[in-house]
């Protein structure tokens, strides 16, 4: 451990220890990591129960990294039981001395019989949501038909009622009224700017690589800062520490290969994956144009240097290229983006104090561009260097989570258009901050978590304090009421051309000089319950948005970074129903959402008589319905998904002309003029509703040392002409994918 890290650790430990020193002298702590004995990978959600000689019980549930911690235990003798669905329970006895901090790592052994049990977890599953949060596991992802044998987090997310996607390409997700650039997407704690691939079924997070993902549609705690809409916190798998495994798959969309295994058995592992699209090469099979290319490379090294520490290094590279509007031969607008993320994570359980120490260091980079490869019309880049410390201390009815961060963010863009001068700009932001979340278990059934996030970007913004609170009430083991509220700010904004929902180009920049950070206030509350095999959940939410930087509306047919300020209101409700009966799983999710922005722009007054325009932005989908059916009949597994989305707002064009400004006598014979879009009031029209049915049927064949999985399926099986978007500048209808049948296979070692 380097000197700087030791000093940081020492400082944090002293901060942790000072107010609680007296208690620590008497009470004992039990903590450790729960792993899968066969692979060495951590198990999230394992139950750890300790029972003292009087029969009193205390317990904890393991975190995504397998960590559990039970504090404030009286010295004495305890029975310990560690259990997890699909694994043989582990029992043990131990004696805790006064003030002892005991690390007990447990490796659970999988059992065939128990693997078939139904997994019920309060936070996992599509039909569960608590305070805007839900946990996604690979089994959930697998249920969504995807044109590849492995599922993908992107497909899963679009099945949630809170999530709106503009279509099946572009990779833009809008969560509860927020925009794509307002989502905080993390891979092992490090930001990924634009992780969703150009074909909307795929992302940098395939099912085979994802350990779990915590998705916050709103109301997230103070640990997360820098974005105002949502958090998608993805933990990637660590790789098998016991033996080598590999897999390769092929579908008309994608070819992929994965390898994982021990570098030092039981101590250090690697997992790597390479995926590359082949849909462009598969065009002759379909007689359709699929001008898309995408792929990603992933590598993660994970190590257990000591019993009480873990570290990992994760590297991710993604690339995407394609024409979103496939029929547009005139503009030849090829979109490209590339992500790079390097994440380093260190988790330590110090032997002297009962806290969890976590350090994340990350580098995130994105470049996106539009135009021909050698001469992009527009390009934008963003780079973030980030270092964070997180500390957790658990007491009997209190849990403190606090931490610090330091960040450098650089962003730049070059904007050129056929009829405009080139505009170039770049900015650097330095920021520091910290947070504190305090979980207070007021009773056994009521948890209150107030928090405060602080940040300061001295060159650009005044210091920011963002109070937040989350609470959960469990009046019955099967019912939970939850709520959350908070203030959120975002120091860097992503500007898209809102006139054109098909455009995925994002120019990253700080808020315009002298303006405040974009800001959101979230308030949400809901209930979830379990009635035998049925899970039900409903959650309502409200957001107030302010200081949003939106592109100034212009009749000029070009992208602009001239920004104007907008405020907005969002409200809605998510309802979910999950039902499992034997091998049949069904899920129904309905989301109602209402989003409206209000923006002021003086020149709109000349056209519409009123400078203030209230409008529903282009991602305001009012109704969204998703139905998922998964039937596992042993030989065959069938997954069906039907989705419906009401029409998205768009601005109705009146027409076009070529305007010659009256700066002198117009020469109509020699001056072409400036193409001009004559439009109605912004976003007064609605595009047609959208619906689609996807089906996949899968069969696994045991080949002894390997398993072959065959999958047949279809996207948009009733071949509906779903509109992706309407290009206002070319007056072209751009449709989503037609019926695309596919056959895919995967070979994996056992």
């Amino acid at each position, binding site marked *: 451990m380097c000197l700087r890290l030791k000093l940081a650790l020492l400082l944090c430990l002293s901060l942790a220890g000072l107010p609680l020193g007296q208690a620590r002298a008497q009470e004992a702590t039990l903590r450790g990591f729960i792993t899968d004995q066969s692979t060495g990978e951590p198990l999230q959600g394992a139950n750890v129960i300790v029972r003292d000689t009087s029969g009193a019980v205390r317990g904890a549930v393991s975190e995504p990294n397998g960590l559990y911690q039970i504090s404030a235990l009286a010295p004495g003798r305890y029975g310990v039981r560690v259990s997890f669905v699909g694994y043989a329970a582990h029992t043990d006895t131990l004696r805790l001395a006064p003030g002892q901090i005991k690390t007990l790592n447990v490796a659970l052994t999988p059992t065939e019989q128990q693997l078939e049990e139904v997994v019920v977890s309060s936070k996992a599953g599509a039909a569960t949501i608590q305070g805007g949060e839900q946990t996604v596991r690979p089994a959930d992802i697998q249920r969504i038909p995807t044109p590849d044998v492995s599922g993908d987090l992107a497909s899963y997310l679009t099945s949630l009622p809170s999530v709106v996607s503009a279509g099946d390409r572009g990779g833009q997700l809008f969560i509860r009224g927020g925009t794509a650039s307002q989502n905080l997407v993390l891979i092992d704690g490090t930001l990924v700017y634009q992780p969703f691939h150009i074909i909307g079924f795929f992302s940098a997070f395939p099912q085979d690589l994802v350990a779990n993902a915590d998705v916050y549609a709103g109301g997230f705690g103070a640990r997360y800062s820098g974005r105002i809409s949502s958090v998608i916190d993805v933990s990637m798998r660590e790789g098998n520490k016991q033996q080598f495994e590999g897999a390769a798959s092929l579908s008309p969309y994608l070819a992929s290969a994965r390898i994982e295994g021990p570098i030092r058995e039981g101590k250090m592992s690697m997992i790597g994956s390479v995926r590359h699209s082949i849909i462009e090469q598969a065009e002759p099979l379909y007689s359709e144009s699929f001008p898309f290319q995408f792929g990603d490379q992933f590598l993660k090294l994970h190590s257990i240097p000591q019993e009480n520490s873990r570290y990992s290094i994760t590297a991710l590279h993604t690339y995407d290229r394609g024409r979103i509007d496939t029929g547009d031969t*005139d*503009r*030849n607008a090829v979109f490209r983006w590339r992500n790079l993320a390097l994440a380093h994570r260190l988790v330590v359980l110090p032997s002297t104090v009962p806290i969890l120490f976590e350090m994340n260091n990350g580098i995130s980079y994105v470049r996106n561009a539009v135009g*021909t490869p050698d001469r992009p019309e527009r390009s934008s880049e963003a780079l973030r260097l980030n270092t964070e410390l997180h500390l957790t201390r658990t007491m009997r009815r209190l849990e403190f989570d606090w931490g610090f961060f330091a960040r450098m963010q650089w962003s730049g863009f070059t904007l050129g258009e*056929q009829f405009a001068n080139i505009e170039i700009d770049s900015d650097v932001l330095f920021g520091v901050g910290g947070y504190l979340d305090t979980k207070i278990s007021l009773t056994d059934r009521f948890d209150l978590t107030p928090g405060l996030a602080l940040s300061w970007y001295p060159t650009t913004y005044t210091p920011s304090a963002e109070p937040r609170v989350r609470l959960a009430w469990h009046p019955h083991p099967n019912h939970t009421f939850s709520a959350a509220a908070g203030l959120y700010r975002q120091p860097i904004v992503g500007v898209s051309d809102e006139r054109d929902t098909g455009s995925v180009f994002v120019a990253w920049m700080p808020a315009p000089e002298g303006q405040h950070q974009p800001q959101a206030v979230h308030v949400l509350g809901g209930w979830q319950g379990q009635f035998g095999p049925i899970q039900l959940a409903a959650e309502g939410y409200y957001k107030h948005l302010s200081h949003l930087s939106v592109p*100034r509306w*212009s*009749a*000029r047919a070009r992208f602009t970074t*001239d920004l104007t300020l907008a405020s907005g209101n969002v409200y809605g409700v998510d309802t979910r129903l999950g039902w499992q009966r*034997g*091998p*049949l799983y069904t899920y129904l999710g309905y989301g109602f959402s209402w989003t409206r922005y209000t923006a002021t722009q003086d*020149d709109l007054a*000349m*056209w519409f008589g009123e400078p203030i325009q209230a409008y529903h932005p282009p991602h305001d989908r009012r109704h969204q319905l998703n139905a998922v059916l998964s*039937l596992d*009949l*042993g030989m065959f597994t069938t997954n*069906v998904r*039907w989705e419906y989305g009401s029409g998205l707002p*768009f601005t*109705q064009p*009146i*027409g*076009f*002309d*070529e*305007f*010659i*400004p*009256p*700066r*002198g*006598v*117009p020469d*109509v*014979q020699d001056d*072409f003029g*400036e*193409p001009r879009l*004559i*439009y*109605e009031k912004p976003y007064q*029209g609605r*595009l*047609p*509703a959208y*619906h689609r049915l996807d089906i996949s049927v899968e069969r696994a064949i045991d080949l002894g040392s390997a398993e072959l999985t065959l999958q047949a399926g279809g996207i948009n099986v*009733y071949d*509906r*002409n*779903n*509109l992706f978007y*309407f290009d206002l*500048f*070319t*007056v*072209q*209808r751009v449709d989503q994918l037609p019926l695309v049948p596919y056959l895919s296979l995967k070979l994996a070692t056992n």
Partner: protein
Amino acid sequence: MRPLDSPFRRSALLSVLCGLLFLTSSCDPSVDPFARDGAPYFSIVGVLDAGRDTQSVRVASLRDSVALGAPPVPFNATVTSEHPASGRRTTWRDSLFRFRFVRDEDLQRDRFVHNAWTTADFRPNETYRFTVTDPNGAASSATVTLPDTFPAPELIPPGMFSPAWDIRVHGVDRLADVIIIYRVERSSGEIQTVEISHIADTVRLSPQEYSIDVVVGEEPLSGTVLSSDVRIVAAGPEWPESGDLDDEMLVAPGAVSNVEDGLGYLAGVTSKTVPMIE
């Protein structure tokens, strides 16, 4: 794994089939994005110039000229001008103009516009009604008054302390343009005419008096100046006053327009050209 019982499986399959039938037959996915009701119908840009033998005005049917870069659309509208004082009515003719834009070596794009033209006579101090009508009767129109004639400008040559010509214009209510017309001999021996507007250099001295400083040859003309003329263009009351508007504001629909049920602007002008360097 427990298999599902047969009645359940049958009912599930039936439900799925019924659902499929419903889905495939519901919801029309077609879309007509245009706001088609009412005005504006046409965009009109140009001037009626008492000093020209041929008038030319840009006319665009907003809903026909749909796509940027689209192939030319037949012009079905009728363009007329009327002189109410005499009752004389003139039907204008249409001409298609092609502009070629080259962004990349392999990407050349033609764009087409329609200019209406006529050789009819338009006189100073007279008022005309210009109308564009589509086959359904929807029309956009503008009423235009041409300004009166005005005295020749006063040209003050460069002096010892100033390299610029001082052009003084008198008796003009609205100055639309000040153009220096150069006759330039290229290195190839070819002689060309280059017109450069100096309206941005204008200083208004009084309601009807203007001063414009012009340094001859200041602009890169790529050749030898053989002679130059100055053309002063006075505008009628419909000339859009755009001085305070930035480019973004100016291009906003409705920011400058005197076209009824349409967009753009049409003004009357009277011009006077005098030699500057001979």
